[in-house]
């Protein structure tokens, strides 16, 4: 179920070079706000029951049928150790495209709720500090300040930790 979003400019009082703008989809996990590059967002769905996959990490909840493709669903709260919550009909799954070239995959991440599509000035993105955030820096590609909120921009490719070599092994 897709929702429509309005674009919000972050710093309307400052002049922004349009060439430096990148768009992110921001969403909430607990009290924190996160963002993923909009180009990686395929669609947004509500939570559906998944089929469990045995012997995989807890945060990999299982797989669903997305128009004929088998797509894994990851709970980001559990991935980031932010504590579990019950899923409700309002729980949202953001379907992302990860990887590049011929290693592209699709996966869904469970989030608390989705906020907006935000325009971010590329030059204003800071590197993640080594401490102080709940989420490990390996997943964060940068931090940005939006209207006094701090949004942590996620590196989508790191979310699904597939050890490629292990996967190819017998």
């Amino acid at each position, binding site marked *: 179920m897709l929702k429509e979003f309005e674009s919000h400019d972050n710093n309307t009082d400052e002049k922004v070079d349009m060439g430096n703008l990148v768009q992110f989809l921001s969403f909430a996990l607990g009290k924190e706000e996160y963002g993923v590059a909009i180009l990686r967002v395929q669609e947004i769905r509500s939570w559906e029951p998944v089929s469990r996959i045995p012997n995989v990490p807890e945060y990999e909840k299982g*797989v*669903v049928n997305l128009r004929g493709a*088998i797509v894994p669903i990851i709970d980001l709260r559990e991935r980031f150790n932010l504590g579990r919550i019950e899923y409700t009909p309002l729980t949202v799954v953001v379907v992302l495209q990860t990887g590049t070239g011929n290693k592209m*995959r699709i*996966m869904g991440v469970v989030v608390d709720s989705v906020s907006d599509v935000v325009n971010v000035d590329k030059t204003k993105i800071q590197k993640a500090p080594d401490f102080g955030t709940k989420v490990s820096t390996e997943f964060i590609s940068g931090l940005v300040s939006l209207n006094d909120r701090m949004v942590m921009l996620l590196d989508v490719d790191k979310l699904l930790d597939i050890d490629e070599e292990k996967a190819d092994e017998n």
Partner: protein
Amino acid sequence: MSIDMAQFHQVFFEECFEGLEAMESGLLNLDMGDIDSEIINVIFRGAHSIKGGSGTFGFTSVSEFTHIMETLLDEMRDGRRKVTQSAVNVLLGSVDCLREMVTAIQGDSAVDESRVSEHKKALEIELNGSASTAESTQAPAPVKAAVVAKPAAPEFETISEGWSIAFTPYLDILKTGNDPVRLFRELAELGELTTTANIHDIPDFYELDPEECHIAWDLKLLGTATEEEVSEIFDWVKGDCELEFSEILLKILKPQEALPDTSEQIPEPEIVLAQLAPATVAAISASEPVARQTEESKVAGVKPSSSIRVDTSKIDTLINMVGELVITQSMLSLIGEHFTMNKLGQLKSGLSQLERHTRELQQSVMNIRMLPISFVFSRFPRLVHDISTKLEKKIELKLVGENTEVDKAVVELINDPLVHLIRNSLDHGIEMPDIRRAAGKSETGLIELKAYHRGGHIVIEITDDGHGLNRDKLVKKAIEKGLVDANANLSDKQAYELIFMPGFSTAEQLTDISGRGVGMDVVRKNIQALGGNIEIISELGKGTTFAIHLPLTLAILDGQSVAVGDETYIVPLVSIIESINISEKMLNRIVGKGETFRLRSEYLPIIRMHEIFNVKSVKASKMAEGTIVVVEGQGVRCGLFVDELRGQQQVVIKSLEANYRRVEGISGATILGDGSVALILDIPGLVRLSNR
């Protein structure tokens, strides 16, 4: 208007490969003692076709090379040349060389010129008894005989005004589709044409046969056309008419320029084939056809390609099916429009029709990917021929069921395992002729490669009448290598399957023929990766059969649905032996094997699915409450303990790895009718899981 010929190139290359295969197959099948003229014709046509096409599309090197082959073959098919084994060998080598040339051209890489000229030389030697030194082959080109010019007489100059042509067609000229009017039209393009018809030979109306030509013409063509050009127009009708040319000459006094006087007799424009010049220097000693380096390069594997040639009849069937489906759909849509309960019967029958059509459509679509297994088998006559020659063994290959169709992916992936198995039979199975004789067998060993469909599967059997497997030797070797316990009591079948264990191959088996590092374990793995299995039947002294079972298509699986708690899993039907229900009493605990139960003469380990898959919602805790599904994978048997069996169905296999990861014990996933995802079990993986 120019057409881009490059668009035809790919098709031409494919045709070349097909033609080369046909030639190779024909050459291998030639029996020196009894030459089958039809086979020679097939081989000739192959060369002829490639020559023609390559000339047309500008691949001169190919057409030149093929021209020599064609000349050789032409003489053979006409009976002007005896078919000898040496000629056949040279031609076989040329086929290889040609194949490499075409591959190189297709892949835009460099052609190995030295190899080409080597084979050319060998061909020429066959053809002429010796090789020519100079660049002797030329592609046949239309050569017009030159007009011989004579110096004009100094006193008078004659200028040609044109031609006077007496054209008397024979009666039947029209019956070759030639039309005098058309000829005149062409002539008129060369200059100013006047035609005078001579009609006095036309019979009475009632005697007139309108299909015959009774008119003759006197033609006058003024202009600068040469006799050649004029004559050329009549090329096609030369045998069907009387034709006389005389030049209309004007004599004038002009002392200076010498005008070329046309000679009296101009030879007919002829197409001349460049002849191979016989060697003028001392004959180069005939070189042996090049010894083959590695088998690998010669026996080209089946290249996986992303396109497929499909019989148009299959496409037509598909179109029909889709048509039916559309009709059924509109019918259902109509019923649904103003649905009332009394239409329920119609709805039901419509739905069952839909189910039928969908199934048929699925079948047809799968069928499109099916190719006859001859695509794979065709490589082997050559392989057997070459290796048996090298090993100095006499071996005959028999192919049965080449038309059996298999999925394209199977064709591409089964090639390597088959090559290995056949090499194995050649190297280790079939004995040397003297040993065979001593054993009372015919000197010529037989390898039979057979393919057939059985119950939703394709079976490929490789049978040799060699010395069979020696189970005691195998067991001994396995014990030596520590692969098997010294006290293990193995059945014959289990003994044979030892050869599939990794590390079983010994030094004596690692010959150049069998290849290094490609053990039987890899063969079995490859076959299992295709969803199939391989079994061995053997009798010491008599021979061995390797039987490969493969699913007909790779995308669809016959599955048994089982429930474990809230989860549904699919067990591939091909791996299920039976399903039974046992009680706790029948369980045994065996050290090192865990829980087992006895099934006839075997003790099979039990895998409690909810344990290895961590299914909390499992219902059955005691044996009696659930069911044991006895399965087999990779030679190992076990019993899967599940809550209950659900239905059997065909499922479409979806990849888990495309978007996710590989999961041990799971080979893929499928989408059930209710849209949910069910995981397909991988038996060997489950066994591994339970062993940990």
